[in-house]
């Protein structure tokens, strides 16, 4: 019978070295995501990026902990949303894919057709999100059903959602579908206390969104989303259980969005004192302190990591910036794979 587990997952503790490795590795992804997004935000402010820029600042631990512990090569799936730069990278999305999509490079996975966070490589376990919140859950379900049809029941699909996204009918239908089909789905609910400007009391009336789990017949986990170690443990357990055939798992992490909804938004509506309240911290410095305290990395190693991370980000961005923009005259202006049935304009060649 599924039930809600208390804040820290009850899985057997991993040994110390594994623990260190996992933590450091997650930290790297968090740092890479933060560094990349800071760069993208700067480019946005400089007018070099059109459309929206949405950051995962403050959510890197929660996002990376899921993405990193899924196994892309094994066939796992990761469906990230707008605050999952860290999870996407940790899962295996090339840095260049991110840079190219933000910058609209014709060589990016979306070829300038779609932008920023709407990128994906569905054949590598990364479906490309549509904007309509909640809609990706059932898409992941379908990917898992397909794998099951082919005898693969040991792959796991991770999907993320925000507190606001849980109010959508699509989320409900998707999670219920996964439960009925007993699919190996891990849903990560990042309750960052806001949906755009809307505080959670306009979004739900339960005490914690993890209270939803039992109603779906799904195992629930309730964690502090700013605590990297808690995130790693909860997702490790959730993924493990899903892989073992125990059906969908729902991990709810409390945290705070440490940015505007998008970079156009100064988020004046977020009371500043929330940062000092529980779950209001920044997971990145928290993890860094832990790293140093535990001596899992030395200050020198850390400095070195910061430098190389910045370099790789700068390099990817520079490369994407140097690439050609999409050319409307070369574009196939139709939307079908079945070319001979297309009514749109076919390419000249």
């Amino acid at each position, binding site marked *: 019978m599924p039930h809600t587990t208390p804040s820290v997952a009850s899985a057997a503790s991993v040994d110390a070295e594994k623990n260190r490795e996992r933590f450091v590795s997650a930290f790297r992804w968090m740092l890479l995501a933060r560094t990349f997004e800071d760069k993208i935000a700067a480019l946005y402010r400089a007018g070099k990026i059109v459309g929206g820029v949405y950051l995962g600042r403050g959510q890197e631990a929660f996002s990376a902990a899921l993405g990193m512990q899924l196994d892309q090569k094994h066939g796992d799936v990761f469906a990230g949303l707008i605050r999952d730069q860290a999870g996407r990278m940790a899962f295996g999305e090339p840095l260049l894919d991110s840079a190219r999509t933000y910058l609209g490079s014709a060589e990016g996975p979306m070829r300038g057709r779609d932008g920023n966070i709407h990128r994906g490589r*569905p054949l590598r376990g990364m479906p490309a999100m549509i904007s309509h919140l909640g809609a990706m859950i059932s898409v992941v379900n379908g990917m898992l059903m397909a794998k099951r049809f082919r005898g693969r029941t040991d792959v796991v699909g991770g999907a993320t959602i925000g507190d606001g996204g849980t109010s959508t009918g699509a989320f409900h*239908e998707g999670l219920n579908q996964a439960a009925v089909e007993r699919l190996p789905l891990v849903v990560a609910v990042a309750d960052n206390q806001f949906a755009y400007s809307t505080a959670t009391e306009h979004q739900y009336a339960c005490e914690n969104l993890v209270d939803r789990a039992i109603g779906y017949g799904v195992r629930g986990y309730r964690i502090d989303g700013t605590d990297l170690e808690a995130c790693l443990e909860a997702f490790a357990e959730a993924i493990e259980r899903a892989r073992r055939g125990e059906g969908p798992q729902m991990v709810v992490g409390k945290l705070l969005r440490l940015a505007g909804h998008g970079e156009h938004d100064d988020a004046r509506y977020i009371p500043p004192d929330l940062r000092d309240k529980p779950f209001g911290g920044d997971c990145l410095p928290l993890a860094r302190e832990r790293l140093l305290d535990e001596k899992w990395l030395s200050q020198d190693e850390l400095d070195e990591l910061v430098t190389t991370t910045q370099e790789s980000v700068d390099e990817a961005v520079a490369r994407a910036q140097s690439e050609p923009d999409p050319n409307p005259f070369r574009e196939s202006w139709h939307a079908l794979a079945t070319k001979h049935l297309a009514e*749109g304009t076919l390419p000249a060649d």
Partner: protein
Amino acid sequence: MAITYLDAIREAQSRALEEDENVYIYGQDVAAFGGAFKATKGLSERFPGRVIDAPISEDAIVGSAVGAAIEGMRPIIEMQFADFSSIGFNQIINQSATQFWRTGVPCPITIRLPSGGTEGSGPFHSQSLESIYAHYPGLIVMTPATVEDAYGMLLEAIRIDDPVIFCEHKLLYYHLKADELPKTILPVGKARIARAGRHATVVACSAMVHEALRAARELAEEGWQIEVVDLRSAKPIDTDTILASVARTGRLLAVSESFPWGGLTAEVVSRVSAEGFHLLDAPPQRLNSKDTPIPYHPNLWRAHRPTWQTIAAATRNLIQL
């Protein structure tokens, strides 16, 4: 042995399941029960595990089909009635229809919509939605009018690498019969001259083809030879065949069971007007259902949709223009 339009749909699905292990069927009550209209009867027994009952969750039903299609499956989705596809609307138009264009990964799903009005089925079990779905880039919309096309086009729909909205007309399910299943069919994308004529062209699809044919038979008795074009698919529209017909007849009436604003008849008339203006000897005309929801009472319902009588009247009028 007579084969109905509904049998043809069942047989096409059966053959697709047999020929391609990537095919599966998903929808409400499609498994042991065989579907609200029995279009999947017996299939869950013949293909265990590949015909699956879904919860009442059209959004998730379509979303999961897209996910499975990404992975190379070829799901067939049965909506219990076309009208309920409004709940899966977002996943259809924004998720499935944009998938290939955005990511380059094909999305071969077939969404079967039991469509069109029948006596007493009312506003929410009668809708014809080809005009809505055809508006969206990335979708193919099929509207078979014959047993042969119900079979052949559904097989083709399942094989096509794009999302196909397959509009089956409920009025045709049981009454329309053929002697056998076709060996080959006209390719998808080609319209069919359902009846040759020279005084006017009536373009229609699905059940309206039969109303148009009946009107043509009536008018034949009055000495008018009406050409009836069965569009077969609402998207793509075979403009060439329509233009060729109008070139022969000089007159066009476009008929559809959809609501009157926009939609199939507007698209057909405006294509012919733009591309075949000089072929027209009279103003091209349209006939649609009326601009209200679809009524429950048979008296009202029969007056709401085009019928052979109103098609005949509109055609007579057209010939005199």
